[in-house]
Structures are given as structure tokens and as C-alpha cells.
């Protein structure tokens, strides 16, 4: 459903992405792995319009994404999380999740100011949907707290809930378990598996090998901005190039 063709991105003269091509098939989990600085976050930013690729093309459901504004791409049904949490600390957990439904909440200032009955009705329905998702993520009892007061692990899950609430076509997750303890990692892993069995298409950037191997249908390996391998988890795990560039390094440090 998402097709990248020879995507390149340069910062100044330095290439951060070089001729990256792969596809994310509908209903599958594609994992994007690679050492720090490989260009994974840059790639996510290029897909979501935060950055614009220097070369190449990105297509989503037969639409060209390159050159489009971030909000327009989001409205096509692409949601994401950020590597360094981008929540709204002063808003409540519920309101944070509700911002994930911005596309459906309407955009007209005038209608909002008049608080017409149809908007009130819609607002109630959005709230119910948000509460349902919070329930799924075990956050229902914290829904009224300002996000700023939550522990890091809870914040990570709020951001995940915000990305899921609109039931987007595609969710991009930038290191959803980075910085979490084993228990929290397991719980997020469980959530991701549930999303996967519900048929949600995911592009998952992650360091945690165990998580990736357990959940991904396809793994893409990035190193210094180049796509060095692609295949099923088993294929990638046994690919000597990958072992050398990444897994070996991981095991050596672990």
C-alpha cells in the first residue's frame, strides 16, 4: 500500500538516505531496523511530510506523497508516533487521544463557536471512541490526568493510543518500546500483536530484536542510509551482511 522508490535525502551535502526502495504491503507488519544514525527516523519523516525527500518518490494508495504537506498526508490515513514523544503535556490523557481524531472533528471555527447540536453529538461519539481505545491500552483510569504528570511508559502508550484511535490505514511507529522496562515492553508488544491480528498495516522502527522477530512479516535493514537487506525475519537474521553490520554489533554490545 506504501511504495518507496529510490528515496534519497541529503542534509547539506551529507546523504542521510540513499536510493531506498521497498513496499509496505496492506495488512502486514514491516519492520525497519538498522544501527543508530542509519536514517530510520529520517525515512519516517520523509513519508509523513515532516521532511521532503531530495530525490525519489513515495506513493500511498496510488497517490503521490512527495511534495504534499504533513497535514494532507495525515488526512489520507497515515498516523505516526515520534521517537522523542510529541504529546501535549498540559492536555489531559483523554484530550491527547482526542487530538488523534482531529481529521473527523471538523475544521470550521464558526460551527465550533455555535456549538450546533450535530457537533455536540459528534463530540460525544469521538469521546466514546477515545475512551474505548484508552480502555484497550489500560489507561482508562488516568484519562483525566494531564499527560505531563504520567510516567514515561504511560506516555509512550498514550502516544500509541493517539495514533490508533482514528483507525488509520497505516501507522508508522518510531521506536515504540525505546526506554521501556521489560514488563512495559511486553505489554506494548502485546498491543502491537493485537493490532496486527486486527489487520492493521504497520511500519515499525525498532531496536528490540526479539520484538521485531516476533511480530514482523517483513524486515528491511537500513545502514548508513542504504537499504542493505530485505526479507522475512528468518532470512534477514541469517544474512551475513546484516549480521556484520548490525546483529553482530548488537550481540557484541549486549
Amino acid at each position, binding site marked *: 500500500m506504501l511504495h518507496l522508490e529510490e528515496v534519497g535525502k541529503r542534509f547539506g551535502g551529507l546523504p542521510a538516505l540513499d536510493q531506498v526502495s521497498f513496499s509496505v504491503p496492506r495488512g502486514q507488519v514491516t519492520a525497519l531496523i538498522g544501527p543508530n544514525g542509519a536514517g530510520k527516523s529520517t525515512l519516517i519523516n520523509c513519508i*509523513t*511530510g*515532516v521532511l521532503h525527500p531530495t530525490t525519489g518518490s513515495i506513493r500511498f494508495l496510488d497517490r503521490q506523497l512527495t511534495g504534499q*504537506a*504533513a*497535514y*494532507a498526508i*495525515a*488526512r489520507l490515513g497515515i*498516523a*505516526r508516533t*515520534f521517537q522523542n514523544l*510529541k*504529546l*501535549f*503535556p*498540559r*492536555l489531559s490523557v483523554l*484530550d491527547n487521544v*482526542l*487530538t*488523534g*481524531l*482531529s*481529521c*473527523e*472533528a*471538523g*475544521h*470550521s*471555527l464558526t460551527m*465550533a*463557536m*455555535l*456549538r450546533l447540536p450535530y*457537533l455536540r453529538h*459528534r*463530540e460525544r461519539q*469521538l469521546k466514546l471512541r477515545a475512551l474505548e481505545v484508552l480502555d484497550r491500552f489500560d489507561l482508562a483510569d488516568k484519562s483525566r*490526568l*494531564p499527560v505531563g*504528570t504520567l510516567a514515561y511508559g504511560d506516555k509512550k502508550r498514550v502516544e500509541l493510543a*493517539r495514533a490508533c484511535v482514528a483507525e488509520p490505514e497505516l501507522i508508522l511507529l518510531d521506536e515504540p518500546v525505546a526506554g521501556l522496562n521489560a514488563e512495559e515492553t511486553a505489554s506494548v508488544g502485546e498491543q502491537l500483536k493485537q493490532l496486527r491480528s486486527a489487520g492493521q498495516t504497520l511500519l515499525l522502527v525498532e531496536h528490540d530484536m526479539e520484538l521485531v522477530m516476533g511480530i514482523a512479516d517483513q524486515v528491511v535493514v537500513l545502514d548508513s542510509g542504504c537499504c542493505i537487506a530485505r526479507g522475512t525475519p528468518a532470512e534477514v537474521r541469517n544474512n551475513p551482511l546484516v549480521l556484520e553490520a548490525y546483529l553482530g554489533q548488537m550481540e557484541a554490545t549486549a
Partner: protein
Amino acid sequence: MSIKEKILYFITLHHTGLTVSGFSLALVLFPLFEDNPYTLGLTNLIAIYVIIVVGLNLFIGYAGQISLGHAAFFGLGAYGSAIATVTFGLPAWPSMFGVAVLVALVALLVGVPTLRLSGHYLAMATLGCNIVVHTIMLQWDQVTGGPSGFPGIPSLSIGGFVFDDEVRLHYLLWSFALLALLLALNLVRSGVGRGLAALAGDETAAAALGVDTQRAKIKVFVLSAVFASIAGSLFAHCYNFVSPDSFDIFASTDMAIMVVVGGMGSIWGSVIGAGLLTLLPEWIDIFENYKDLIHGLILVLILMFLPQGLMTGLYEKITDKITLRRQKNAAS
């Protein structure tokens, strides 16, 4: 649920409506207890400022932008109504709304290029716009009457009922102020309001959620300009006279200070901010002469100790304390 719980539930569910009703009732009764025209004159001025500050708070406090030029829109509304009704002899009410539409267009013209800028640049651009408008008011004296002002503006009336004394103006002006409050309260409790809060929190995140940040900023800027323009028209018809002094850059900074003092992102704080800064010079004589200095001082103190403003800042301090205490109780 017990009766007490039911009542509490009703209050939490309808707290906005209840607060607005209570406030309206207090305003309806106010002239019965306070009939000193001087005092009513002051509270009427507060009503006019409330309209502006509520609009400006949407732009500064919710959308997280900065404008140091809103007195320009206030002034355009005032002079617009003055010129339309006196020079062209047009009826006052349609003029007020016609002028507001023109001011919306001006705000759009100013907003489209400047809102691409951020932070200091936006502050500078809006300040510059204010200086231009103020200079035109001073210099173009065939039309504006120049530095000596524009006299003879008619009072507003509805079918022979003329709003020409303090009590009548009280009801007129506070009706508008309440309407502004209500519209703003509705807005911030909607999905659009959440989009604005998101935009103020983090533009990248807001855009990733589908908020057209550029467009949202422009819309709120235009909306706040319209609020200021309506306030300006009311101001002109209320005093029957306008002069450029009321619309200089110090007036603009005062408006921004009212937003900050009352509380950024607190609609009720706007009432407090407008009230406090209008009444302070009355309460303490020394304020009269050193008004701008003392306003600046208040701003610095608030930003140092309660960066979110009086209402929002105190509210957060209190809720933080309660959360801490709860956590402590839970731990022990």
C-alpha cells in the same frame, strides 16, 4: 447515586453553562446595587476590553502565537464605524458588521504573509502594522480628524431605545462581552479548539494529526481581529468620540498583558486580566502617571513567577499540589 453525588455530577457535567449563567445573573443585577455612573463607566470599559482580550487569548493562549498589534484592529473598527455613520451617514448596526468584514479582510492580508513567520518576527510584524495604522489615524486628518480626534459619533439604538447612559450601555456592552465569552468557550471545548491547543503545543505533532496549522493560525488571527473590530465599533458609539491615542502600540501591549496576566488559554482569565488592568490605575493613584512602567513590571513579575498567567498558573499550582498529596497518601 445519592442526591449529593447526583448534584455533584450535574455540576461537573454542566459547569461551563452554570458559570456562564451565574455570571450573567450577576451582571443583570449589578446596576441595581451599583448605580454610580463613574463605576459603571469603568465596568463598561472592562466589557469592551473583555471582547478584545477573549479573542486575543484564542490567538495567544490557545494557538500559541503572538500579536502586539491588536489595537490596530480595535482602532480600525472604531474609526470605521465613526466614518461610516458620520461621514457617510450610514445606519450604525449594519456599519458595525460591514466594518468587521473589512477588518477581517485587512487581517487576512496582514496574516497570510506574517503568520509564516514565528516568534519575534510575528511580534515585530504585528507591531509594525499597528504603527502604520496609528500613523494613518494621526496624519490623514481630512478623514480621521487627525490628532484632535473624531467627535459626534451617534449612540447606538434599537427601535428608538437609545443606549446613551451608563446603565443602558452596561446591558448593551456586557451582552456583547458575554456573547464573545460564550462563543470562545464553545470553540475551545470543540475539536477545533483541541486542534489549536495541539498547534500551540507542537506544530509538527499537530500537523501529523491532520491539523492544517497554517490555515488554523490565519483563521484564529482573523477571528480575533473581528472581535477587536466589534469592540472598536462599540467603543466609538459608547463614547461618541475617538482619538488616535486609544489605538497606539501601548494599547496593543496592554491587551497582550491582559491576556498574560489573566492566564494564557483561560477564557475566564481574560475577564480577570481585562478587569485587573483597567481597575488597578483607579485603585492606586501612582498608577496613573507610571501606567506603562507598572504594566511592564506586572508582566515581568507574572512571567517570572506564574508563566502561564494568573488564572492558569494558580490553577496548575493548586492541581499539582493536590496530585502530589494524593501520590504521597497513596504511597504511605
